[in-house]
């Protein structure tokens, strides 16, 4: 919305989200999710910290090469320290409360593991569906902590998802199938469709390089087909502004 509104005034904003759920590693995720924040954290926190550590090591005559990062001390100093400091502050930046601190810590752990994997196993094959799924699961776990009202609630929710509160077979009625169809449709869009920036790529909607997306036919052009599609999208937008939710006494 911000990008679109700015564009109406001939101002181009930088990209802020670039299909983060298509990320194939947590490092990739942070380069796609809240990109302006990542850039800010990198410039103002991570980079100065990493630079200071590098200078300190250099002054002590210690190596700064990749091999040095593979040693426990080198890894702790050159990777863990800047990542943990940055991510804890990034977590707290999102809000005050233990959940945000844990969110930051969790992502610091993810990123550390990701970096360790890169350092120790540099010649792995290109990341595939497994990497995407693993990244998504990690991010999902972080999102639970991020959105939960308390840490206890987050733990309860995760325990429930793991089946620790018991497992029952759901009744597969029409509504269950509807929910599954919704999920399938939404995941198909998330993982299969290009994002809005990619759809409008030919018209430079935002600052920064926009990578081509899947389904190259889904690139906006001033045609009747696109007018109809955007007309339907506009109708959906208008329909969804009512803000009248359902209140159900029922377990339905």
């Amino acid at each position, binding site marked *: 919305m911000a990008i679109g509104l700015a564009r109406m005034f001939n101002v181009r904003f930088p990209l802020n989200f670039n299909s983060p759920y298509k990320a194939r590693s947590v490092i990739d995720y942070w380069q796609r999710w809240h990109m302006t924040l990542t850039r800010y954290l990198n410039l103002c926190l991570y980079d100065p910290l990493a630079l200071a550590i590098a200078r300190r090591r250099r002054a002590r005559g210690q190596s700064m090469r990749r091999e040095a990062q593979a040693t426990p001390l080198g890894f702790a100093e050159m990777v863990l320290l800047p990542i943990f400091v940055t991510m804890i502050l990034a977590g707290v930046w999102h809000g005050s409360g233990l959940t945000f601190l844990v969110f930051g810590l969790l992502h610091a752990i993810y990123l550390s593991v990701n970096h360790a994997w890169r350092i120790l196993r540099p010649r792995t094959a290109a990341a595939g569906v497994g990497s995407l799924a693993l990244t998504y699961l990690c991010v999902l776990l972080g999102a639970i902590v991020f959105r939960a009202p308390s840490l206890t609630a987050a733990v309860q929710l995760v325990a429930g998802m793991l089946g620790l509160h018991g497992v029952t077979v759901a009744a597969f009625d*029409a*509504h269950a199938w*509807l929910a599954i169809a919704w999920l399938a449709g939404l995941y198909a869009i998330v993982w299969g469709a290009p994002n809005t920036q990619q759809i409008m790529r030919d018209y430079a909607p935002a600052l920064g390089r926009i990578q081509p997306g899947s389904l190259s036919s889904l690139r906006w052009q*001033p*045609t*009747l087909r*696109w*007018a*109809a599609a*955007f*007309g*339907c999208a*506009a*109708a*959906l937008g*208008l*329909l*969804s*502004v*009512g*803000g*009248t*939710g*359902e*209140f*159900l*006494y*029922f*377990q*339905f």
Partner: protein
Amino acid sequence: MTATRYLAALSATMLAAFGLVWLWVAAVPLAYLDPEYPAWLAKQQMLARCDLGELIVVGDSRAAVDILPSALPIRTTNLAVGGGSPIEASIAVARALACAPPPRRVVVSFDAAHFTEPDLFWERSVRFGFVDRDSLRDLQRVSQQLDDPTIYDLRRGGLPAPLRSMLYTLRFPSFYFDSLVKGGVFLRWWRNRQALADTIATRGQYFFGTEPGSSLVAVEGRLRNFTALPVLDHYFDQMLSQLAARGIDVDFVAMPMNDTTWQAMRAQVRDGFAAYLADYAARYPNFRVVGEVTPHWPDRWFGDGYAHLNPEGARRFSAAFAQWLASTAARSTAENAERCAIRVVE
């Protein structure tokens, strides 16, 4: 394609899509609205057909659940609705009084919170079509007169209340979109049709939670004191005066709450509620308060966190209620109001 033609095509598609959805929303609400809608529709249909019987019950969701007309000795229609307040009750009574013959007795039942705070007036009563345009105009007038916008202008900061009111009566589709999505556009049709038939068959009674007990604290547990909203008080008074003018007996029968809620309830709420009702009983000779104002039953008879009785609890309550009705049919209700209190039979 020129920009003008593109924008024209976009606008035309948008209007057509919006119009089609509006048509669907207005024409077949049973296909997508949430599962309580058929119960409301059943009550509206019974009212429209004047298929009411001797006794009508008006009130909130507890009354809708707890009183089973099939268990009562006289033909009864349960017109109580989920989130119902004196506004909905007054509307239902006015419609019932237009029937020939009108009901001979009316049972009113609200918990304390339905006099003191708004519930789901717009989301339910208006959206489900129970409150029509004229009633909304009346509510607007009364709210302005009493300087109490609590219900009419519930959502301050949103649309102006008169505009929102008009859009609701026109079934503006944006207010129904959430149900449309959750209901899969048409997937609730069969279930809702069945629920409609079931509610007509049970003469307006329907269940909410059916758990074998609930120790959750219901709404009374968090009330700090009892002060009736002027607008709700107005409609309660209006309903009683309408019934008094027609010489129809009105009994206020409080539905039980679970013990846990009763323990959490403050004494000033209990006392304030009792005093409020006693004041009405003194003003209207046809209005009696039957038994305790805040009766409480063991938690095991409740099916959810809103103190709705579970099926077994409702059967027990209705059996006791039927006994009381049978006894009052023979004797003066004034005597019995003091003599008979509806209590759980352990």
